[in-house]
């Protein structure tokens, strides 16, 4: 089982990652995105960003449950994918939605909180994308690198708030995303809590000796 998964996971992930892009591009060119294709593209690229981000955050729990340490490489792959979807989302916004109307764009970012928070979510991903190579891990050292990459949690929260505030009334979909991220966060909180108490016992054990 492990060998099969290990052999096929990358091709399958590539397929999953590229399929939405291919689909959206085709639909866009064939004018199948409804009456307001730009809004639709914005919505889709934004949601795919959150999905990829959730997928990347799901790697660690799965890795710990299966003890497949090699999964760690998929985490960076999915994280980068999330970044590129975010970049696509921002490009649709800048090029198709506002057509490089920088003044309006800056006003929009400064005056409308959901846009501000969305920008924050994106900006926080930039250093993570830049340090996604093996070389940067070696250069920073595992500990520092992990520390830096905890920014992804802030970005995910900002991304969810961005979606929640962008919606006019029916917040069902944002709530689904928030629920998924809450579960992914819960794993970490539980582990952190357990780890802390274990360290605590160890320390007291040492004292006893």
């Amino acid at each position, binding site marked *: 089982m492990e060998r099969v998964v290990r052999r096929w996971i990358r091709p399958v992930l590539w397929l999953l990652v590229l399929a939405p892009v291919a689909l959206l591009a085709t639909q866009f060119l064939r004018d199948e995105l*409804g*009456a*307001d294709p*730009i*809004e639709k593209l914005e919505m889709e690229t934004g949601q795919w960003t959150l999905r990829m981000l959730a997928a990347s955050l799901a790697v660690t729990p799965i890795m710990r449950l299966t003890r497949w340490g090699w999964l760690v490489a998929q985490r960076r792959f999915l994280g980068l994918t999330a970044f590129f979807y975010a970049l696509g989302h921002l490009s649709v916004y800048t090029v*198709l*939605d*506002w*057509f490089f*109307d920088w003044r*309006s764009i800056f*006003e*929009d970012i400064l*005056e*409308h*909180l*959901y846009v501000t928070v969305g920008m924050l979510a994106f900006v926080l991903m930039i250093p993570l994308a830049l340090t996604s190579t093996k070389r940067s891990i070696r250069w920073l050292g595992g500990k520092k690198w992990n520390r830096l990459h905890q920014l992804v949690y802030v970005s995910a929260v900002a991304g969810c708030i961005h979606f929640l*505030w*962008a919606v*006019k*009334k*029916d917040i069902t979909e944002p709530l689904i995303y928030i629920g998924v991220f809450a579960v992914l966060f819960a794993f970490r909180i539980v582990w952190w809590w357990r780890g802390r108490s274990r360290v605590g016992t160890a320390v007291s054990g040492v004292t006893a000796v």
Partner: protein
Amino acid sequence: MLIRRPDDIASSEITPESVYLDRRKFVGKAGALAIGAMVAPTALQAMACSSESAAVGERRDSANGVVGQEEKVTDEKDATSYNNFYEFGTGKDEPVENAKGFRTSPWTVSVEGMVKKPTKFAIEDLLRGLTVQDRTYRHRCVEAWSMVIPWRGVPLRDLLAKMEPLPSAKFVEFTTLFDPNRMPGQKTNALPWPYVEGLRMDEAMHPLALMATGMYGKTLPPQNGAPLHLIVPWKYGFKGAKSIVKIRFTDKMPRTTWNDLASNEYGFYANVNPDVDHPRWSQAQERRIGQFRKIPTLPFNGYAKEVASLYAGMDLRKNY
């Protein structure tokens, strides 16, 4: 601009779509001839026209409310498949699916409040004797997208006059049907049902206000608010209650759905105003469906000449 059709069209004759499309071409050409960016809608001419036609008897009349050089009528497919009608789902592509088979006959409208005699009208009786007109108006959604839609309907003032409101009536309230079995969106609590909207009497009696019964030369499709859809072209789209079953006259400003939900985001007046932003997005520009670049939003959606006087002396930043 006023586009008139030959006078020899009988009231019984339904305009075939091909003829209708020709009219659109004509409108386009006439628009191109017009000098200046925007040809002002000629409400007064429309009015004169309707009273004149009332004199000759019922007949279809084409009074055109809009159309400037750049303004093309939105694709019928877009206007009938992309709209907000939460009674049939909160997605803009949902009403067209979920409203399939929605029956609008029989249909009763209850007239209540400050009227000479509260009455339940069968829709046929309510519309009988009123002149049906074609009016092409800009439609501006509060979400910053817009369309140009050729509506067909009766002037709201004619419809309301028939209900004989008392002079003490200062406002009129419109209520949408509440029937979750027929409007599946009402099974959710997406909005507090039923949907209620309202106008000040002078707004309601303005010649541009229309009670639509059709669009694109056809009967109103259910997803667009059949059989009665209020059209107030200088206001954001949410003011236009759909599938209306109750009209009530009152001397107090009625509570309206979106205003009740979030009064900082949606005012009672909701006049299209590029200078007053929605707290979460700008209203300075809009995307005209079918066009790529955003276009500037006009005060009162381009009908300032006709309606601005209704709000003389009012602070439009406060009364948004």
